[in-house]
């Protein structure tokens, strides 16, 4: 009898909590819709960037005298770059900075008892902030790409499986950013780590040069690193769907998610203990 009661209470509580996290995500959504001017200038930058990519790769391919490299045409390259950029830049402002501030201000240490709810809270915020930016970026980016390189065949499988990779890619980015923010427990200035992380994403995340265009040996390494598995994997799959590629990327993602998830959990608990031993 008692067991039944606890179960009921448990699920009810969880349902309530989930609603709470949804509300938090909504708040973040409206917060990020507030500035019109920022929106316009951001969009202008997106368009110019895609334009630059278009010309750069058109010229580069022409000089090399090929129409396809690594399975990608110029149009596919531009669309995949548009996507990785859209996916990645949607996550600003950086979570690592937010977590850093919470650690430094003591908010994290003193108002949190369980890592699970804190992490879920920040994940909802992370997704909540990203969604409007993501849609705006994709919308404008797609328009620009359509005009500049024309449409590419986007099959429903590509979009569906790509979306799966994207969702897990966000989880992966979330965990790594969380970890960087958590190092604030021990390190005065975490910005150096944030730089290195974002540069890792730049070089190995297919933000300027798709990994498919890397020299072979480097490509193999890059695809195993977590950076390529956040946004590039999803974008690459969306522009040119290959089932084996999906499985490879998804498996790599899950391994990294597991790894970073455990590290994050461990660091979180260690950090809380560190504070209670040393004081604020």
């Amino acid at each position: 009898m008692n067991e039944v009661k606890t179960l009921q209470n448990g699920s009810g509580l969880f349902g309530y909590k989930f609603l709470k996290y949804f509300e938090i995500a909504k708040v973040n959504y409206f917060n990020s819709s507030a500035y019109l001017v920022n929106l316009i200038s951001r969009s202008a930058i997106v368009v110019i960037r895609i334009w630059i990519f278009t010309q750069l790769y058109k010229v580069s391919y022409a000089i090399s005298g090929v129409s396809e490299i690594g399975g990608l045409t110029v149009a596919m390259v531009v669309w995949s770059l548009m996507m990785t950029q859209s996916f990645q830049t949607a996550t600003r402002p950086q979570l690592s900075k937010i977590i850093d501030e919470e650690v430094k201000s003591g908010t994290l240490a003193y108002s949190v008892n369980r890592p699970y709810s804190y992490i879920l809270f920040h994940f909802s915020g992370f997704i909540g902030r990203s969604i409007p930016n993501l849609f705006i970026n994709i919308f404008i980016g797609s328009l620009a790409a359509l005009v500049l390189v024309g449409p590419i065949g986007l099959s429903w499988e590509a979009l569906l499986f790509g979306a799966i990779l994207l969702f897990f890619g966000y989880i992966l980015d979330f965990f790594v950013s969380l970890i960087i923010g958590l190092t604030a427990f021990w390190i005065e200035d975490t910005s150096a780590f944030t730089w290195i992380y974002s540069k890792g994403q730049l070089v190995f995340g297919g933000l300027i040069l798709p990994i498919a265009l890397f020299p072979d040996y480097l490509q193999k390494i890059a695809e195993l690193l977590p950076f390529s598995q956040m946004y590039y994997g999803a974008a690459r799959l969306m522009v040119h769907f290959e089932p084996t590629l999906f499985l490879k990327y998804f498996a790599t993602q899950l391994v990294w998610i597991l790894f970073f998830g455990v590290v994050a959990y461990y660091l979180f608990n260690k950090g809380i203990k560190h504070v209670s031993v040393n004081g604020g």
Partner: protein
Amino acid sequence: MNKTVIEVKNLSKVFQIKQKSAGFFGGLSSAFNPKYKQVKAVDDISFSVEEGELLAFIGPNGAGKSTTIKMLTGILFPTSGKMKVLGFNPSEDRQKLAYHIGSVFGQKPQLWYHLPPIDTYNLFARIYELKPKDYKERLEFLVEQFEIRDLLKTPVRKLSLGQRMRCEIVASLLHKPKIIFLDEPTIGLDVVAKQHIREVIKYLNEKEKVTIFLTSHDAGDIETLAKRTVVINYGKIIFDDTTEKLKKNYIKSKVIELVTEEPIKNFDFEGGKIISRTKYSLKIELDTAKNSIDKLLTYAMDNFAIKDINIFDTPMEEIIAGIYREQQL
């Protein structure tokens, strides 16, 4: 006959505050069709200050104090009216005027936090284009007067608040300004440090004939230092007279809290009304017209085992309410 260093005639400042509507579409509409609300921060004020005066400029928050000071220093342009500071029109000759005025804002430090004060002083000497010989003499003089010789080479972040304040004031005096604007110079300081700063300010004013424009929420600062007080409220000057008069007419009482080692049994002091009590403490409202704080403290020390004493000034709101009441009569 002293010369006038500040002259203000019918000075007004009206701010246009943009009304923003909430939400996304609200933001959109206010971007294309903005609505403004007019706020009169300073409303047709006139006064003049003579060389060597030490005047207090007080009022509640948002009364127009900082707006007035900003206009006098050339940081803000007035909407209408005339000003002359040391013969300059602050709005037109801000940089020229800046060579002759100094300012200390209790909340906004000028000294570089991680460096010793001497480094900031050297920088200032260059910014104000002081001749090396003059600077050396001046610095020596100030260091002596303000007793900061031992603090010169200590990083500011390691100094106590009182020490920092003294060093800040020295920084504002290096270029021998003729007028100094002091904003909350004793904020956050303990009783002893407050006293020290007040002495220093008094000395400045008396010996060097520096005109001092003091804004403070601390009635103690005002009573000890300023011969003249100007009270501003809702942008209008509602009192411009001697501090004596202000005290006599509006600062009629002080609240004294006595904390004792043993419970207080009988308290009887002329003019002192008990407003609250606990086993070991007593709060007394003293009518300053009937009796003095000194006498009360002597009475308390003689009759009780005093552990701690706190003195509270009449809050600004009451002083202003008093002024309004009288003006309506």
